[in-house]
């Protein structure tokens, strides 16, 4: 039998149901793995070992006494990105300004997982306040790509993606503002899902850009993604932007025939400067989908070229406001100053990293009177165009298929001196957040350096089912998701 830590949620649930494994065994296996590889991966900022072992034992006792059966996540060890509030457990956003913060409340997404009996393994590293595409902007430490420790795992959910890829947990939650789940999932060779905006409650998710942020699962395969989606989705009265729409059973579409489904291939997503091996893998994947009966259709999303600029204006504007509460008055870091203004300035100067400061400054500028119309309002107008592009294409196709990233994982330090280059690594994921539609990234091949390549399926609003169906069909017909990094 494989080590428990290498298995999926579904596989472990089967073993548990057949009483072939115990919850403490599963959790112990995961921590053994962490002890072996974590110093090379550095995926976590907080480990909750004692509490996890305790919870595991309680779950096992309950199972044995017959008091507990068949909750979906009983005994399943998951990792949570450190921007989701976990009651009584530090939630730092990988920022110095919050490194002492212990929330007295639980995020809705994690409390729904808890309702199904999951076991929290630890909180994962990320770019500070989810700002970045490489997890190099963490205020704490850099996470390494399990496929090549010289390389970045992607970001900002780099810790979650690396932990899943390295079998340091069974699955994880990440958050995706401009690609922060899908891009690291692609670069780490795992499955990352960004649900429709409003599908999953943002309550308890420390905000980066409120109109774009969405929580989603990072898993070892598509089935686990559907399982977690079933649990975390649905209206939450604590989040006005969460949609009061019914949640289908996302696992019900797994294995369904994809013959006749139309998949749009947008010309704008195959650009100059894109890695040749990535492009080849994606084109190969499209052929594979075609062989399964899907019908590729050439489509156009004409405003794609404006997406990155639009995204950064809006995301930074919202971020400048969302991060104003870290002022040293109520919680987190407080620096000394001779008066109030100096205390504010010192706290924020010492507490925030360079990328966060850059974004606060740009966002403040974009919102200030005299520039608002030229930047913020204009960006909102372009956002509407981008949304309309998707609306038009989705009149003709069931899903859109694109590369997730233009290149495989780059080297640590390679793009840190050039923020604009770094921003371009999200070029294929950003439009999805602007439009608020769902998308999933799954492995579709490897480069000659043995680095994973990601394939992105984009769906209509609240139609996660189509992309799960397509992704699962593709996944089942290939072997990419079975490969493991040699750590």
């Amino acid at each position, binding site marked *: 039998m494989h080590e428990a830590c290498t298995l999926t949620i579904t596989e472990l649930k089967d073993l548990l149901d057949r009483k072939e494994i115990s919850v403490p065994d599963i959790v112990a296996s995961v921590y053994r793995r962490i002890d072996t590889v974590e110093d090379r991966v550095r995926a976590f900022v907080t480990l909750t070992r004692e509490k996890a072992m305790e919870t595991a034992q309680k779950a096992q006792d309950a199972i044995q006494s017959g008091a507990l059966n068949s909750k979906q996540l009983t005994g399943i060890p998951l990792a949570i990105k450190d921007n989701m509030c976990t009651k009584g457990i530090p939630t730092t956003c990988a920022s110095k300004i919050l490194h002492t913060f212990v929330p007295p409340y639980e995020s809705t997404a994690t409390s729904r997982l808890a309702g199904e009996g999951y076991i929290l393994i630890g909180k994962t590293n990320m770019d500070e306040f989810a700002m970045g595409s490489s997890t190099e902007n963490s205020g704490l430490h850099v996470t390494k790509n399990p496929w090549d420790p010289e390389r970045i795992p992607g970001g900002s959910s780099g810790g979650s993606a690396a932990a899943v890829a390295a079998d340091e947990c069974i699955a994880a939650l990440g958050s995706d503002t401009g690609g922060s789940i899908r891009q690291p999932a692609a670069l780490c060779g795992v499955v990352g899902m960004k649900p429709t905006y409003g599908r999953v409650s943002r309550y308890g998710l420390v905000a980066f850009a409120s109109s774009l942020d969405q929580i989603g699962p990072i898993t070892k395969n598509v089935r686990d993604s559907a399982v977690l989606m079933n649990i975390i989705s649905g209206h939450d009265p604590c989040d006005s932007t969460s949609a009061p729409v019914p949640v289908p059973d996302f696992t019900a579409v797994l294995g369904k025939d994809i013959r006749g489904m139309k998949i749009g291939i947008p010309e704008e997503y195959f650009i100059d400067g894109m890695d040749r091996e990535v492009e080849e893998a994606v084109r190969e994947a499209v052929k594979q989908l075609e062989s399964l009966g899907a019908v590729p259709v050439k489509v156009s999303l004409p405003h794609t070229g404006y997406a990155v600029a639009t995204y950064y204006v809006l995301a930074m504007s919202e971020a400048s406001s969302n991060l104003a509460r870290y002022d040293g008055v109520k919680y987190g870091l407080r620096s000394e100053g001779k008066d109030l203004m100096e205390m504010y300035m010192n706290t924020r100067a010492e507490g925030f990293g360079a990328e966060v400061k850059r974004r606060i400054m740009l966002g403040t500028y974009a919102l200030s009177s005299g520039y608002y119309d030229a930047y*913020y309002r204009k960006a909102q107008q372009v956002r509407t165009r981008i949304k309309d592009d998707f609306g038009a294409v989705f009149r003709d196709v069931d899903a859109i298929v694109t590369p997730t990233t233009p290149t495989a994982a780059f080297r640590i330090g390679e793009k840190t001196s050039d923020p604009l280059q770094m921003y371009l690594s999200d070029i294929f994921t950003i439009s999805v957040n602007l439009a608020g539609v769902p998308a999933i990234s799954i492995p579709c091949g490897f480069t000659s350096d043995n680095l994973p390549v990601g394939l992105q399926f984009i769906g209509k609003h609240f139609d996660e089912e189509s992309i799960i169906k397509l992704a699962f069909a593709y996944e089942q017909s290939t072997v990419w998701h079975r490969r493991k990094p040699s750590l």
Partner: protein
Amino acid sequence: MKYETIIGLEVHAQMLTATKIFCGCPTAFGAGPNTQTCPVCIGMPGVLPVLNRKALEFAIRTGLATHCRISPYSRFARKNYFYPDLPKGYQISQYELPICEDGHVKIIADGKSRRIGITRIHMEEDAGKNIHEGAGNYSFVDLNRAGVPLMEIVSEPDIRSPLEAVEYMKKLRAILRYLGVCDGNMEQGSLRCDANISLRPAGQKELGVKAEIKNINSFRFVEKALDYEIKRQIKVLDSGGRILQETRLWDSARGITESMRGKEEAHDYRYFPEPDLVPITVNQQWIEEIRSALPELPDVKRARFVSFYGLSEYDTDFLISEKPLADLFEETVKLGGQPKAVSNLITGDLLRLLNAENKSIEECPLKPKQLVGILNLIENKIISWTMAKTVLDEMYRTTAENIGIAKLELPALEITADAIVKEKGLVQISDTGEIEKAVDDVIAKNPKEAERFKSGEEKLIGFFVGQVMKLMKGKANPQMVNDLLRKKLSSQP
């Protein structure tokens, strides 16, 4: 030079909701610091606001009562600035698309009726409070008030004098209280205003440069601050100076306004639509439900009181100033009181008693039935108006005591005017013989005054009435005393 004064008011009214605008914390005044807070209203990382439907309903109710258009689509915005009492670093307010627009209220100032336009009414959350006392080098922050729902009612620059400004404020306060959406308590800050004021040479079209006076919290201060500011601006303009666009503070202790910050340091609030709240869509049916549930408002009540009860405008204005006062009046009339007599009893003696104890009309212990009891005794000439005062005082005192006792779960006694009159022996004497005897006595004892009266000193009648009343311990029918005195004094040789 002659100037015209242009004033616009921004009135902040705290809504009477039980809970805050974006969370479930209570809004009660006076609790210990930071005891009425939760992660949402103190802006903890990751938490989200959810709009209180009651606050929305109150804003719509106010909009309807002030003839505003209710926007079917409105939204919240963030107003960004740093201050320790502002937990999130921004205030959630409405900016581009407020819930109510284009209304008006009517006021009467200096006998002239005027219509003051309302530009908009929008909802927002209050900030907390910084406490600077008792901390040495530190300040404390109390966030109980953070997230308390406010309405900001912005007037057009239609106000032309400090008196009109006060009348406008009073009218708004009455409307808000009638609607039950704000208690109007200015001392506790439930109602406060910022005033924009500018002057322009009479006849000029363009507006002059304005100053904004922040946070005025009483009617008297509105008048005084604006009076001061007008004089200040005239002085500047007459000496050839220019008014600076700035924010000023009213210093009530010194009776002056002073500069707080100038335009060059003015805040850039960087408003943008609040992404954590979905836009508000209000359906017409709900608006109509709210409209049909509106109470009778001061203007309508005023017209009805004048025409239906035949009261003077002066009495009417007094009675309608507070809805409970008008209600007490109407209930007492319904039980058989004569409108004028009821009005006199309430506006005169009853309010004197309440004021002496600093009580509001809502705290009045007396019921309409008790008041009618007194009025019936006067009507039936059993007691005089003078004696009625004594009865009222006694009834007020014993009823209040009785209510105090009733709280101890003893049965409440019904205290009636009849009982008091009987117990105190306060029956009015209308016996001609008895009064005549007293009148004769008094005239006999005061021959000089009687002479002076006869030689034309009419006002001495008051002296004689007083003496007779004193002799009869106030129980004589005053009309009879008066008649007899006049008869006797003029008939004597």
